[in-house]
């Protein structure tokens, strides 16, 4: 079996008496979509924050592309190829859709300490960004400031920005949140293709989407991974049904 792209080993994080992350271990293998599900308050956001580098774990380690990145900053992890999207769209509001993507492209090309060449006349950046926007179907909205895009368009732009990093791993935090049925369908097809490019750790509430997409699922409850396995295994796991799915069925 190929080496995992991303490995969490015994990751723990407490806020006071609350164990938001409790000895979580999981792996993300090349070519797979590993979905992380769990009821509200299960600690998914805290876990994502630790993987992305925004929150420092109390103990445990994170290995990304064979390197221990536990001590690295968010920006360093991004430069190593960790492409994330945010649960609540987090873009550069005054920048157009195109310029949001250009920012990611410029960051991937190296140091921001370049003071002379005008960005808005940089054909390489502009054409590159336009091509990426076309992949998510936003090419017609390229000049619109991201603050003026619709909710669904902002979700897509989040993905376009992550794509621009040509990451080794995608970390998608509820990409379907607030999307209509049609939007979810399109996105499911898109993510199925996307995993050919790089594996995806997918945090998602939409169960239909998760069951349609995931190669493996891990279930997080009260900060712990209570079960991990294929779609069929998770569907039939009594603990999961009790903790999570049962709750939904009633």
């Amino acid at each position: 079996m190929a080496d995992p792209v991303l490995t969490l080993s015994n990751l723990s994080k407490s806020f006071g008496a609350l164990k938001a992350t409790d000895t979580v271990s999981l792996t993300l293998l090349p070519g797979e979509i590993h979905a992380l599900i769990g009821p509200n308050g299960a600690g998914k956001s805290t876990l994502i924050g630790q993987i992305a580098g925004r929150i420092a774990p109390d103990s445990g380690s994170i290995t990304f592309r064979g390197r221990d990145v536990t001590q690295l900053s968010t920006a360093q992890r991004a430069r190593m190829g960790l492409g994330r999207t945010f649960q609540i769209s987090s873009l550069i509001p005054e920048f157009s859709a195109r310029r949001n993507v250009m920012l990611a492209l410029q960051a991937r090309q190296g140091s921001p300490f370049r003071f002379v060449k005008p960005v808005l006349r940089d054909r390489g950046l502009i054409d590159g960004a336009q091509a990426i926007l076309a992949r998510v179907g936003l090419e017609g909205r390229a000049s619109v400031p991201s603050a003026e895009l619709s909710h669904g368009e902002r979700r897509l732009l989040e993905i376009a920005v992550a794509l621009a990093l040509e990451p080794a791993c995608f970390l998608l935090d509820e990409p379907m949140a607030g999307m209509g049925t049609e939007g979810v369908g399109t996105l499911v097809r898109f993510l199925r293709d996307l995993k050919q490019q790089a594996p995806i750790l997918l945090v998602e509430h939409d169960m239909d989407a998760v069951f349609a997409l995931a190669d493996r699922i891990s279930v997080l409850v009260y900060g712990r991974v209570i079960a991990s396995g294929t779609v069929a295994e998770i569907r039939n796991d009594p603990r999961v049904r009790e903790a999570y799915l049962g709750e939904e069925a009633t």
Partner: protein
Amino acid sequence: MRNEHREYAVNAVLALGLLAVPLWALWANEPFTITLCTRIAVLALAGVGLNIALGLGGMVSFGHAAFFGLGGYVAGILAQHASSGAPILGLPGSNQMLVIWPVAMLVAGTVAAAIGALSLRTTGIFFIMITLAFAQMVYYFAVSWPAYGGEDGLPIYVRNRFPGLNTMRPWDLFVVSWGLLMAGIGVFALIRGSRFGAALMAIRQNPDRAASVGISPFGVQLAAFALSGAITGLAGALMADLSRFTSPSMLAWPMSGELIVIIILGGVGRVFGPVAGAAILVGFEVTFGGMTEHWKLWLGLVLLGVVLFARGGLLGLIAGRERLG
């Protein structure tokens, strides 16, 4: 007319107007008007410096007087050593602007880097307060150090020189100041359009997003803060020569406030915003300063109006909201 074209038109009016008025004053033999315009140019240059930190980077520094005053002290101290012949730190003094300016920028930029490195660990109101605290430390240091005038400040008896010009003539000094202002604005515009500027503006709007595409906010902000301090320091050196006096009040907090007011009146982040802001400020000082010593009350009311009803300052009022593309 599209907003961008309007902005270009306003910019041209500001740049050329600031040149035309003293030119007329030269013809009409009104040296006081020339000096007023020089004052506008120098304050605007200080504002251009602050605008890099505040406008592009969103770093609300309430301590830029420190860099402005340090530039002034570099001009005053080097000039004093040049006239006395005593070396400073083993080097001779100088009364050449072309020597003084780089030294002023280096000193102000270095101090800005040090202050920035500590202050940038905070944000919001804490950043404002800590930059204020550092600037006041520099102020009290200058006041309590008698070697260079202490509380009394440091006079510059003969203005520092610029090759080919007689800086004691108001018009010549104006030309120098206007030229430097245009160069400063050119640098600002270049940075704003560059990759560095894109990173800086992105960090202002959303540091988490910038970090998650691989841009470390701290380094970019620190470089911008140092550059900002250096340009404001350059303006300080010019101001000392203009008033032929380096005063500790250049270092004091009301000066920091004045620079922020200039940026807000003109338009935060706008390329020519500081020129508009400085012109309004000096205009008020001259017009109402003659009538009442409480002229700042009227300025305060205008500032209140701008903050409440015209967030974009004068440039925002004329050219609409800025589009970053």
